[in-house]
Protein backbone atom coordinates (compact mmCIF):
# COMPACT_ATOMS: atom_id res chain seq x y z
CA UNK A 1 0.00 0.00 0.00
CA UNK A 2 2.70 2.42 1.11
CA UNK A 3 4.90 1.52 -1.85
CA UNK A 4 2.14 1.73 -4.41
CA UNK A 5 1.07 5.11 -3.05
CA UNK A 6 4.60 6.36 -3.37
CA UNK A 7 4.79 5.19 -6.95
CA UNK A 8 1.47 6.86 -7.63
CA UNK A 9 2.71 10.15 -6.27
CA UNK A 10 5.83 9.89 -8.38
CA UNK A 11 3.84 9.19 -11.53
CA UNK A 12 1.41 12.03 -11.01
CA UNK A 13 3.59 14.63 -9.35
CA UNK A 14 7.10 13.76 -10.51
CA UNK A 15 7.44 16.94 -12.52
CA UNK A 16 6.37 19.23 -9.72
CA UNK A 17 8.76 17.49 -7.33
CA UNK A 18 11.56 18.01 -9.82
CA UNK A 19 10.60 21.67 -10.18
CA UNK A 20 10.73 21.86 -6.40
CA UNK A 21 14.23 20.37 -6.41
CA UNK A 22 15.28 22.86 -9.04
CA UNK A 23 14.08 25.83 -7.01
CA UNK A 24 15.57 24.44 -3.82
CA UNK A 25 18.96 24.01 -5.49
CA UNK A 26 18.73 27.41 -7.16
CA UNK A 27 18.03 29.11 -3.84
CA UNK A 28 20.60 27.07 -1.91
CA UNK A 29 23.42 27.46 -4.42
CA UNK A 30 22.98 31.16 -5.19
CA UNK A 31 22.32 31.84 -1.51
CA UNK A 32 25.52 30.07 -0.46
CA UNK A 33 27.68 31.70 -3.14
CA UNK A 34 26.30 35.19 -2.58
CA UNK A 35 26.53 34.58 1.16
CA UNK A 36 30.17 33.60 0.74
CA UNK A 37 30.90 36.82 -1.12
CA UNK A 38 29.16 38.83 1.60
CA UNK A 39 31.01 36.83 4.23
CA UNK A 40 34.38 37.44 2.57
CA UNK A 41 33.79 41.16 2.46
CA UNK A 42 32.31 41.47 5.95
CA UNK A 43 34.70 38.98 7.55
CA UNK A 44 37.65 40.55 5.74
CA UNK A 45 36.74 44.05 6.90
CA UNK A 46 36.19 42.88 10.46
CA UNK A 47 39.56 41.13 10.50
CA UNK A 48 41.55 44.17 9.34
CA UNK A 49 43.73 45.36 12.16
CA UNK A 50 44.86 48.91 11.62
CA UNK A 51 48.47 49.49 12.58
CA UNK A 52 50.24 52.70 13.43
CA UNK A 53 50.28 53.82 9.78
CA UNK A 54 46.50 54.29 9.76
CA UNK A 55 45.16 57.82 10.00
CA UNK A 56 42.68 58.86 12.67
CA UNK A 57 39.98 59.22 10.03
CA UNK A 58 40.36 55.62 8.92
CA UNK A 59 40.40 54.52 12.56
CA UNK A 60 37.05 56.21 13.18
CA UNK A 61 35.60 54.88 9.92
CA UNK A 62 36.68 51.38 10.86
CA UNK A 63 35.00 51.66 14.27
CA UNK A 64 31.73 52.80 12.72
CA UNK A 65 31.79 50.16 9.99
CA UNK A 66 32.61 47.46 12.56
CA UNK A 67 29.66 48.58 14.64
CA UNK A 68 27.28 48.37 11.69
CA UNK A 69 28.59 44.94 10.69
CA UNK A 70 28.22 43.65 14.24
CA UNK A 71 24.60 44.76 14.27
CA UNK A 72 24.02 43.04 10.91
CA UNK A 73 25.55 39.78 12.07
CA UNK A 74 23.77 39.93 15.41
CA UNK A 75 20.33 40.51 13.90
CA UNK A 76 20.56 37.94 11.12
CA UNK A 77 21.98 35.23 13.32
CA UNK A 78 19.63 36.09 16.14
CA UNK A 79 16.27 35.93 14.35
CA UNK A 80 14.65 33.04 12.42
CA UNK A 81 15.11 33.11 8.65
CA UNK A 82 11.38 32.53 8.27
CA UNK A 83 10.66 35.79 10.06
CA UNK A 84 13.39 37.59 8.08
CA UNK A 85 11.82 36.38 4.84
CA UNK A 86 8.35 37.60 5.72
CA UNK A 87 9.52 40.92 7.12
CA UNK A 88 11.90 41.81 4.31
CA UNK A 89 9.55 40.63 1.58
CA UNK A 90 6.71 42.84 2.78
CA UNK A 91 8.99 45.69 3.81
CA UNK A 92 10.31 46.14 0.29
CA UNK A 93 7.29 44.93 -1.67
CA UNK A 94 5.83 48.38 -2.31
CA UNK A 95 9.22 49.82 -3.06
CA UNK A 96 10.62 47.38 -5.59
CA UNK A 97 7.70 45.06 -6.48
CA UNK A 98 9.84 41.97 -6.37
CA UNK A 99 8.85 38.34 -6.87
CA UNK A 100 8.80 35.74 -4.10
CA UNK A 101 11.80 34.02 -5.62
CA UNK A 102 13.88 37.21 -5.78
CA UNK A 103 13.01 37.95 -2.17
CA UNK A 104 13.88 34.41 -1.12
CA UNK A 105 17.29 34.53 -2.78
CA UNK A 106 18.08 37.92 -1.25
CA UNK A 107 17.02 36.80 2.22
CA UNK A 108 18.94 33.52 2.19
CA UNK A 109 22.03 35.34 0.84
CA UNK A 110 21.99 37.98 3.54
CA UNK A 111 21.27 35.39 6.19
CA UNK A 112 24.06 33.08 5.00
CA UNK A 113 26.37 36.11 4.73
CA UNK A 114 26.04 36.72 8.45
CA UNK A 115 27.15 33.16 9.25
CA UNK A 116 29.84 33.18 6.56
CA UNK A 117 31.30 36.40 7.97
CA UNK A 118 31.97 34.60 11.23
CA UNK A 119 33.30 31.52 9.42
CA UNK A 120 35.69 33.64 7.33
CA UNK A 121 36.77 35.62 10.36
CA UNK A 122 37.72 32.46 12.23
CA UNK A 123 39.43 31.22 9.06
CA UNK A 124 41.46 34.42 8.99
CA UNK A 125 42.33 34.07 12.66
CA UNK A 126 43.59 30.54 12.02
CA UNK A 127 46.21 31.83 9.55
CA UNK A 128 49.61 31.99 11.21
CA UNK A 129 50.58 35.50 12.34
CA UNK A 130 53.98 35.00 10.70
CA UNK A 131 52.32 35.06 7.28
CA UNK A 132 51.03 38.56 7.89
CA UNK A 133 54.34 39.74 9.30
CA UNK A 134 56.28 38.38 6.35
CA UNK A 135 53.94 40.08 3.88
CA UNK A 136 54.16 43.39 5.73
CA UNK A 137 57.94 43.08 6.03
CA UNK A 138 58.13 42.72 2.25
CA UNK A 139 56.31 46.02 1.90
CA UNK A 140 52.82 44.77 1.10
CA UNK A 141 49.99 47.02 2.22
CA UNK A 142 47.25 45.88 4.59
CA UNK A 143 44.87 45.13 1.73
CA UNK A 144 47.52 43.42 -0.43
CA UNK A 145 48.40 41.23 2.54
CA UNK A 146 44.75 40.36 2.97
CA UNK A 147 44.07 39.61 -0.70
CA UNK A 148 47.31 37.85 -1.62
CA UNK A 149 48.21 35.95 1.50
CA UNK A 150 45.61 35.83 4.25
CA UNK A 151 42.28 35.32 2.47
CA UNK A 152 43.42 32.49 0.16
CA UNK A 153 44.65 30.57 3.19
CA UNK A 154 41.63 31.53 5.27
CA UNK A 155 39.23 30.27 2.60
CA UNK A 156 41.07 26.99 2.44
CA UNK A 157 40.98 26.62 6.21
CA UNK A 158 37.32 27.58 6.31
CA UNK A 159 36.24 25.40 3.41
CA UNK A 160 34.68 22.59 5.47
CA UNK A 161 32.58 25.11 7.37
CA UNK A 162 31.62 26.89 4.14
CA UNK A 163 30.54 23.57 2.65
CA UNK A 164 28.52 22.89 5.75
CA UNK A 165 26.62 26.13 5.18
CA UNK A 166 25.68 24.89 1.73
CA UNK A 167 24.23 21.69 3.16
CA UNK A 168 22.37 23.67 5.82
CA UNK A 169 20.99 25.89 3.07
CA UNK A 170 19.67 22.96 1.04
CA UNK A 171 17.62 21.96 4.07
CA UNK A 172 16.82 25.32 5.59
CA UNK A 173 15.63 26.87 2.34
CA UNK A 174 12.48 24.91 3.16
CA UNK A 175 11.41 27.63 5.58
CA UNK A 176 11.25 30.04 2.64
CA UNK A 177 8.05 28.36 1.50
CA UNK A 178 6.46 30.81 3.92
CA UNK A 179 6.76 33.39 1.15
CA UNK A 180 5.34 30.92 -1.39
CA UNK A 181 8.40 30.07 -3.44
CA UNK A 182 7.78 26.75 -5.15
CA UNK A 183 10.68 24.86 -3.66
CA UNK A 184 10.61 21.25 -2.53
CA UNK A 185 8.82 21.83 0.78
CA UNK A 186 6.14 23.94 -0.85
CA UNK A 187 5.55 21.33 -3.56
CA UNK A 188 5.37 18.50 -1.07
CA UNK A 189 2.88 20.39 1.04
CA UNK A 190 0.60 21.01 -1.92
CA UNK A 191 0.88 17.40 -3.10
CA UNK A 192 0.02 16.17 0.37
CA UNK A 193 -2.88 18.62 0.49
CA UNK A 194 -4.41 17.39 -2.73
CA UNK A 195 -3.75 13.64 -2.35
CA UNK A 196 -4.21 13.34 1.43
CA UNK A 197 -1.25 10.90 1.31
CA UNK A 198 0.63 12.81 4.01
CA UNK A 199 3.02 10.12 5.23
CA UNK A 200 4.00 9.00 1.76
CA UNK A 201 4.52 12.50 0.41
CA UNK A 202 6.66 13.68 3.30
CA UNK A 203 8.60 10.43 3.19
CA UNK A 204 9.42 11.12 -0.46
CA UNK A 205 10.38 14.67 0.43
CA UNK A 206 12.70 13.51 3.19
CA UNK A 207 14.37 11.01 0.87
CA UNK A 208 14.90 13.68 -1.80
CA UNK A 209 16.46 16.07 0.74
CA UNK A 210 18.68 13.28 1.98
CA UNK A 211 19.84 12.45 -1.55
CA UNK A 212 20.56 16.11 -2.29
CA UNK A 213 22.63 16.62 0.87
CA UNK A 214 24.48 13.34 0.36
CA UNK A 215 25.45 14.30 -3.20
CA UNK A 216 26.46 17.73 -1.96
CA UNK A 217 28.75 16.30 0.72
CA UNK A 218 30.36 13.93 -1.75
CA UNK A 219 31.08 16.83 -4.11
CA UNK A 220 32.37 19.00 -1.26
CA UNK A 221 34.68 16.23 -0.04
CA UNK A 222 36.05 15.79 -3.55
CA UNK A 223 36.77 19.51 -3.81
CA UNK A 224 38.47 19.47 -0.41
CA UNK A 225 40.67 16.55 -1.41
CA UNK A 226 41.55 18.32 -4.64
CA UNK A 227 42.61 21.43 -2.69
CA UNK A 228 44.88 19.34 -0.49
CA UNK A 229 46.58 17.66 -3.44
CA UNK A 230 48.88 20.63 -4.01
CA UNK A 231 50.27 20.19 -0.53
CA UNK A 232 52.13 17.00 -0.03
CA UNK A 233 53.87 17.28 3.27
CA UNK A 234 57.08 15.51 4.05
CA UNK A 235 58.78 15.52 7.41
CA UNK A 236 60.90 18.66 7.76
CA UNK A 237 64.18 16.80 7.95
CA UNK A 238 63.40 14.47 5.09
CA UNK A 239 65.87 15.61 2.48
CA UNK A 240 67.12 12.35 1.07
CA UNK A 241 67.06 12.06 -2.73
CA UNK A 242 64.27 9.49 -2.82
CA UNK A 243 61.84 11.69 -0.94
CA UNK A 244 62.87 14.69 -3.01
CA UNK A 245 61.89 12.75 -6.12
CA UNK A 246 58.62 11.91 -4.49
CA UNK A 247 58.07 15.58 -3.79
CA UNK A 248 58.77 16.43 -7.41
CA UNK A 249 56.31 13.88 -8.66
CA UNK A 250 53.58 14.89 -6.30
CA UNK A 251 53.89 18.60 -6.87
CA UNK A 252 54.41 18.62 -10.63
CA UNK A 253 57.67 18.94 -12.42
CA UNK A 254 60.06 21.08 -10.42
CA UNK A 255 62.75 22.41 -12.71
CA UNK A 256 64.78 19.59 -14.19
Amino acid at each position, binding site marked *: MFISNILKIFRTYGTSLLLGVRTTLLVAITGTLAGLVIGLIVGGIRAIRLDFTASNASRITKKIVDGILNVYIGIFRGTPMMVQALFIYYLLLDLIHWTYLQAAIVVISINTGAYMAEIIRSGIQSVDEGQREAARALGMSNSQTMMEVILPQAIKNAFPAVGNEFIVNIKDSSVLMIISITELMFQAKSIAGSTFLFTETYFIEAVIYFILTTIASIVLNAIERHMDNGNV*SLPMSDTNPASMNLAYHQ*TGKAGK
Partner: protein
Amino acid sequence: MALVEIRNIHKNFGTLEVLKGIDFSVDEGEVVCLIGRSGSGKSTMLRCINLLEIPDSGEIRVFGENILENRDVNSYRAKVGMCFQQFNLFTNMNVLENCVRPQIKVLKRTRKEAEKKALQLLAKVGMLDFSRASVNTLSGGQKQRVAIARALCMDPKLMLFDEPTSALDPEMVQEVLNVMRELAAEGLTMIIVTHEMRFAREVSDRIVFVDDGIIVEDDKPEVIFTRPKSPRTAEFLRAFM
Protein backbone atom coordinates in the same frame (compact mmCIF):
# COMPACT_ATOMS: atom_id res chain seq x y z
CA MET B 1 77.32 58.16 7.23
CA ALA B 2 75.58 55.47 9.18
CA LEU B 3 72.93 53.50 7.30
CA VAL B 4 71.05 52.68 10.47
CA GLU B 5 71.14 54.93 13.49
CA ILE B 6 69.14 54.21 16.60
CA ARG B 7 69.01 56.74 19.40
CA ASN B 8 67.75 55.98 22.87
CA ILE B 9 64.81 53.75 22.00
CA HIS B 10 62.55 52.37 24.67
CA LYS B 11 59.89 49.72 24.24
CA ASN B 12 57.43 48.27 26.70
CA PHE B 13 55.11 45.34 26.27
CA GLY B 14 52.54 46.12 28.93
CA THR B 15 54.45 46.46 32.14
CA LEU B 16 57.48 44.62 30.80
CA GLU B 17 60.24 46.96 29.69
CA VAL B 18 62.00 45.18 26.85
CA LEU B 19 64.25 47.91 25.50
CA LYS B 20 65.69 50.30 28.05
CA GLY B 21 67.41 52.91 25.97
CA ILE B 22 69.24 51.45 22.99
CA ASP B 23 71.84 53.42 21.04
CA PHE B 24 73.18 51.62 18.04
CA SER B 25 74.36 52.27 14.52
CA VAL B 26 75.38 50.31 11.46
CA ASP B 27 77.42 51.63 8.54
CA GLU B 28 76.85 50.74 4.96
CA GLY B 29 78.38 47.36 4.08
CA GLU B 30 78.77 46.32 7.70
CA VAL B 31 77.69 42.95 9.05
CA VAL B 32 76.60 43.19 12.67
CA CYS B 33 75.52 40.28 14.85
CA LEU B 34 73.28 40.78 17.86
CA ILE B 35 73.87 38.18 20.53
CA GLY B 36 72.35 37.68 23.95
CA ARG B 37 70.01 35.52 25.97
CA SER B 38 66.44 34.79 24.93
CA GLY B 39 64.27 37.63 26.11
CA SER B 40 67.13 40.10 26.21
CA GLY B 41 65.44 42.34 23.64
CA LYS B 42 67.61 41.68 20.59
CA SER B 43 64.74 40.48 18.40
CA THR B 44 62.58 43.41 19.45
CA MET B 45 65.42 45.74 18.59
CA LEU B 46 65.70 44.17 15.14
CA ARG B 47 61.95 44.30 14.60
CA CYS B 48 61.93 47.99 15.44
CA ILE B 49 64.20 48.63 12.47
CA ASN B 50 61.55 47.61 9.96
CA LEU B 51 58.70 48.83 12.13
CA LEU B 52 57.20 45.47 12.97
CA GLU B 53 57.44 46.90 16.47
CA ILE B 54 57.11 50.59 17.15
CA PRO B 55 59.33 51.90 19.92
CA ASP B 56 57.60 53.96 22.61
CA SER B 57 60.26 56.64 22.47
CA GLY B 58 63.53 57.42 20.77
CA GLU B 59 64.59 57.91 17.20
CA ILE B 60 65.45 55.51 14.39
CA ARG B 61 67.11 56.89 11.27
CA VAL B 62 67.58 54.54 8.33
CA PHE B 63 68.91 55.67 4.95
CA GLY B 64 69.09 59.16 6.48
CA GLU B 65 65.35 59.40 7.22
CA ASN B 66 63.54 59.34 10.51
CA ILE B 67 61.44 56.24 9.83
CA LEU B 68 59.14 56.79 12.81
CA GLU B 69 57.84 59.92 11.10
CA ASN B 70 57.71 58.31 7.69
CA ARG B 71 54.15 57.76 6.49
CA ASP B 72 55.11 55.61 3.51
CA VAL B 73 56.01 52.57 5.55
CA ASN B 74 55.41 50.06 2.75
CA SER B 75 57.99 51.44 0.36
CA TYR B 76 60.42 51.79 3.25
CA ARG B 77 59.92 48.17 4.26
CA ALA B 78 60.47 47.05 0.68
CA LYS B 79 64.04 48.37 0.96
CA VAL B 80 64.68 46.39 4.13
CA GLY B 81 64.76 42.62 3.75
CA MET B 82 63.76 40.45 6.69
CA CYS B 83 64.18 36.75 7.39
CA PHE B 84 62.32 35.10 10.23
CA GLN B 85 63.07 32.20 12.50
CA GLN B 86 59.97 30.40 11.25
CA PHE B 87 60.68 31.24 7.56
CA ASN B 88 57.09 32.40 7.02
CA LEU B 89 56.94 31.41 3.38
CA PHE B 90 53.46 31.96 1.97
CA THR B 91 51.87 28.53 2.08
CA ASN B 92 49.30 29.38 -0.57
CA MET B 93 51.99 29.86 -3.22
CA ASN B 94 54.76 27.72 -4.63
CA VAL B 95 58.44 28.60 -4.27
CA LEU B 96 58.62 30.77 -7.38
CA GLU B 97 55.36 32.60 -6.62
CA ASN B 98 56.66 33.42 -3.13
CA CYS B 99 59.48 35.32 -4.79
CA VAL B 100 57.49 36.77 -7.68
CA ARG B 101 54.24 38.03 -6.14
CA PRO B 102 55.76 40.58 -3.73
CA GLN B 103 57.84 42.08 -6.54
CA ILE B 104 54.75 42.50 -8.73
CA LYS B 105 52.60 43.87 -5.93
CA VAL B 106 55.04 46.13 -4.15
CA LEU B 107 57.63 47.13 -6.76
CA LYS B 108 55.14 47.02 -9.66
CA ARG B 109 57.49 44.91 -11.74
CA THR B 110 56.10 42.97 -14.68
CA ARG B 111 55.71 39.24 -14.24
CA LYS B 112 58.51 38.64 -16.72
CA GLU B 113 61.00 40.85 -14.90
CA ALA B 114 59.94 39.43 -11.56
CA GLU B 115 60.34 35.84 -12.67
CA LYS B 116 63.73 36.53 -14.15
CA LYS B 117 64.88 38.10 -10.91
CA ALA B 118 63.35 35.32 -8.83
CA LEU B 119 64.97 32.52 -10.83
CA GLN B 120 68.30 34.28 -10.66
CA LEU B 121 68.14 34.52 -6.86
CA LEU B 122 66.73 31.03 -6.39
CA ALA B 123 69.76 29.82 -8.35
CA LYS B 124 71.98 31.85 -6.06
CA VAL B 125 70.64 30.13 -2.94
CA GLY B 126 70.70 26.75 -4.70
CA MET B 127 66.94 26.35 -4.90
CA LEU B 128 66.37 26.73 -8.64
CA ASP B 129 65.36 23.08 -9.03
CA PHE B 130 62.58 23.61 -6.53
CA SER B 131 61.04 26.66 -8.15
CA ARG B 132 57.75 24.84 -8.89
CA ALA B 133 57.63 22.94 -5.63
CA SER B 134 55.03 23.61 -2.97
CA VAL B 135 56.65 25.15 0.09
CA ASN B 136 55.30 22.39 2.34
CA THR B 137 57.53 19.84 0.62
CA LEU B 138 60.73 21.67 1.56
CA SER B 139 62.99 21.01 4.51
CA GLY B 140 63.62 23.79 7.00
CA GLY B 141 66.97 24.72 5.52
CA GLN B 142 65.47 24.87 2.05
CA LYS B 143 62.60 27.02 3.28
CA GLN B 144 64.99 29.48 4.86
CA ARG B 145 67.06 29.70 1.68
CA VAL B 146 63.89 30.44 -0.30
CA ALA B 147 62.95 33.06 2.29
CA ILE B 148 66.34 34.70 1.80
CA ALA B 149 65.88 34.64 -1.98
CA ARG B 150 62.40 36.14 -1.57
CA ALA B 151 63.79 38.99 0.49
CA LEU B 152 66.67 39.57 -1.93
CA CYS B 153 64.24 39.81 -4.86
CA MET B 154 63.17 43.19 -3.50
CA ASP B 155 66.75 44.53 -3.93
CA PRO B 156 67.04 45.45 -0.25
CA LYS B 157 69.73 47.86 0.89
CA LEU B 158 69.69 46.28 4.32
CA MET B 159 68.94 42.74 5.45
CA LEU B 160 67.63 41.78 8.87
CA PHE B 161 67.88 38.19 10.07
CA ASP B 162 65.93 37.17 13.15
CA GLU B 163 67.50 33.91 14.38
CA PRO B 164 67.50 32.42 10.87
CA THR B 165 68.89 29.05 11.96
CA SER B 166 67.24 28.59 15.36
CA ALA B 167 64.36 26.50 14.02
CA LEU B 168 66.59 24.25 11.94
CA ASP B 169 67.91 20.78 12.54
CA PRO B 170 71.67 20.91 13.14
CA GLU B 171 72.59 19.40 9.77
CA MET B 172 70.74 22.16 7.93
CA VAL B 173 72.25 25.11 9.71
CA GLN B 174 75.33 25.24 7.49
CA GLU B 175 73.45 25.44 4.19
CA VAL B 176 71.73 28.59 5.41
CA LEU B 177 74.86 30.07 6.96
CA ASN B 178 76.76 29.48 3.71
CA VAL B 179 74.24 31.58 1.81
CA MET B 180 74.59 34.31 4.43
CA ARG B 181 78.38 34.15 4.28
CA GLU B 182 78.15 34.73 0.55
CA LEU B 183 75.91 37.76 1.04
CA ALA B 184 78.26 39.18 3.64
CA ALA B 185 81.19 38.73 1.27
CA GLU B 186 79.29 40.66 -1.40
CA GLY B 187 79.12 43.65 0.92
CA LEU B 188 75.40 43.60 1.73
CA THR B 189 74.61 45.41 4.96
CA MET B 190 73.24 42.85 7.40
CA ILE B 191 72.01 42.83 10.97
CA ILE B 192 71.74 39.31 12.33
CA VAL B 193 70.27 38.06 15.56
CA THR B 194 71.89 34.71 16.15
CA HIS B 195 73.00 32.09 18.62
CA GLU B 196 75.59 30.69 16.18
CA MET B 197 78.65 32.06 17.91
CA ARG B 198 81.24 30.61 15.57
CA PHE B 199 79.41 32.01 12.56
CA ALA B 200 78.98 35.39 14.27
CA ARG B 201 82.67 35.56 15.01
CA GLU B 202 83.65 34.63 11.51
CA VAL B 203 81.26 36.77 9.53
CA SER B 204 80.68 39.96 11.51
CA ASP B 205 82.47 43.26 11.44
CA ARG B 206 81.00 43.98 14.86
CA ILE B 207 79.24 42.07 17.56
CA VAL B 208 76.70 43.61 19.86
CA PHE B 209 75.91 41.91 23.15
CA VAL B 210 72.41 42.77 24.36
CA ASP B 211 71.35 41.94 27.87
CA ASP B 212 68.23 42.89 29.78
CA GLY B 213 67.18 45.57 27.30
CA ILE B 214 70.45 47.44 27.01
CA ILE B 215 73.55 47.13 24.87
CA VAL B 216 76.25 45.89 27.18
CA GLU B 217 79.06 45.72 24.71
CA ASP B 218 79.55 46.63 21.05
CA ASP B 219 82.93 45.77 19.59
CA LYS B 220 84.94 43.81 17.05
CA PRO B 221 84.46 40.04 17.24
CA GLU B 222 88.05 39.40 18.37
CA VAL B 223 87.57 41.73 21.31
CA ILE B 224 84.18 40.35 22.30
CA PHE B 225 85.26 36.74 22.09
CA THR B 226 88.79 36.98 23.52
CA ARG B 227 88.82 39.89 25.93
CA PRO B 228 85.32 41.19 26.62
CA LYS B 229 85.28 44.35 28.68
CA SER B 230 82.13 43.56 30.59
CA PRO B 231 81.91 40.64 33.01
CA ARG B 232 78.30 40.09 31.84
CA THR B 233 79.52 39.42 28.29
CA ALA B 234 82.20 37.07 29.58
CA GLU B 235 79.67 35.18 31.65
CA PHE B 236 77.27 34.83 28.72
CA LEU B 237 79.98 33.60 26.39
CA ARG B 238 81.31 31.12 28.94
CA ALA B 239 77.90 29.51 29.07
CA PHE B 240 77.94 29.22 25.29
CA MET B 241 81.45 28.02 24.57
